[in-house]
């Protein structure tokens, strides 16, 4: 079971990022989450969602989803684009098990863009 993304359902609200950041820090920020809203190509309205696990990145691009082993990320240029704290150096998703709750990113998404599979 892992968090997956339906990128075309995403509206870019970043509630997933914010909830994930809260899971790790019990505070609100956009630099701690294991899930990252890619929004660096604003003029093209191109956005997607990236989830980091211990083993790979689930990359939810609008044109299709991809699972990429961590060692392959640099070759593919899929590190999340401009970010003050690249996703590769963030905590891996623990499915919120450390807090004993369901994955908060999935629970909080208003448009059903995240799901478990």
């Amino acid at each position, binding site marked *: 079971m892992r968090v997956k993304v339906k990128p075309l359902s995403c509206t870019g609200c970043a509630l997933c990022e914010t909830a994930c950041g809260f899971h790790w*820090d019990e505070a609100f920020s*956009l630099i701690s989450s294991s899930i990252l809203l890619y929004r660096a190509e604003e003029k093209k*309205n191109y956005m997607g969602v990236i989830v980091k696990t211990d083993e790979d990145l689930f990359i939810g*691009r609008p044109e299709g989803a991809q699972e990429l082993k961590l060692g392959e990320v640099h070759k593919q240029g899929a590190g999340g684009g401009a970010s003050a704290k690249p996703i590769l150096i963030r905590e891996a998703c623990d499915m919120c098990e450390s807090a004993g709750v369901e994955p908060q990113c999935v629970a909080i998404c208003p448009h059903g863009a995240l799901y478990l599979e």
Partner: protein
Amino acid sequence: MDTMYYGDILVVDLDSGKTGQVEFERQMLEQSGPGLASGMALLREHVEGEPLVLGSGLLTGTTAPASCLGFALGASPVTGEPAVAPLSQYAGSEMKLSGFSMVVIKGKSAKPVYLWLHDGVADIVDASKLAGKDTWETTDAIRSDMGEHLIQVISTGPAGESGSRLASFSINYWGSGDTAGLGAVMGEKNLKAVALRGLGMLDAEEPLEFYHGTLELLSGSPAEKGFKATCAAVKAYDIDGWLKPLVHRYRSCFACPHACNTFVKYNEDHGVIDSTGVEEPGLLITGAAAPLWLQRGGWEVEPACRALEALCREGMDVVRGARELAGTPLNDAAEIRAAVKGLGGTEDAGWPADNDISYTGLFGPWVPPLSEEDGWVEANRAGYVLGICPAYILLSGIDVSRLFELCSPAAGIELDAGRIAEMFA
């Protein structure tokens, strides 16, 4: 005690080119009130410097629904009175996380500058090379210079630099709800832009109680897309249907379940979803009033969107600009750009709706007339104090008292409608 704010009050003196910081004391939150209420206190305190005050609400930048809202506050050159304009999209949340709780910008710079706020550091940067640039060029240049594409750029365009009555600051490329001419205030100050990047962290007084309270509110919130609900509520034409042949995707402001912002593509097929196409495929429409004015005036949808882009690029109020353009539909892109440059600001802001209200005082028609005037004013006041989009408050039907209940676990502050009314007395 934690206050859900991060950092000091920044005071920028453009006359001298110096900045200073003042502690954002809990006393100010309790006495003046959070968000816009603190902003108004700072506006009065620094009135001799004809300040522009930027800030955010108590809940901005959290998981509270629609907690996207920051504000810009200054004396409107349109009305001569204090007026507020929204920092929506991601600008409000980046403001909240920038490392400054509030920002007071006084005086006038001798040369064009922009203010770069990040990690609690404020830099006044020479913007001579940006003079005369439009808002798209300015946003691109600042992001390129800083090597960071998530920077939020609040800029003034050629309209603001020339003191046009239509001047309106733009948030990145997409215009804003500044119907009060605060873009001209920036131009008068030789302040080309304020660039924000928020890497801070907001601590709540009772974090788990606050967080679970926001989840309860979100779980009962409608999640809609586009302007359909707005148009229905103001008894206006369904602008979504008119825009549909160009719609690419809908976008939310930060933390908002209602993705009303509508991205339209007219320089490439609207169905293109990858990023390999043209660099500037279209426009993010962030409010329904401007396209409604053009549709009612007989414009075709594609040239209407090009007109909105031209207004955003010039740094003009899209609502008043569209209203002025409405009566003379155009098709040719060059003619549209020329017509936009020739606008004189002869129309008032407002909605092409039968139930429109009068817009006097602090708040402009960025928020649609989704209720009677008293309720509309109350939603604006609560929204700008809390940092919650007032349009979301009115559209969602959320019980505002439940938002007030979040203030205690957020910052140990008790708020209710009566207390909010006192702040604006």
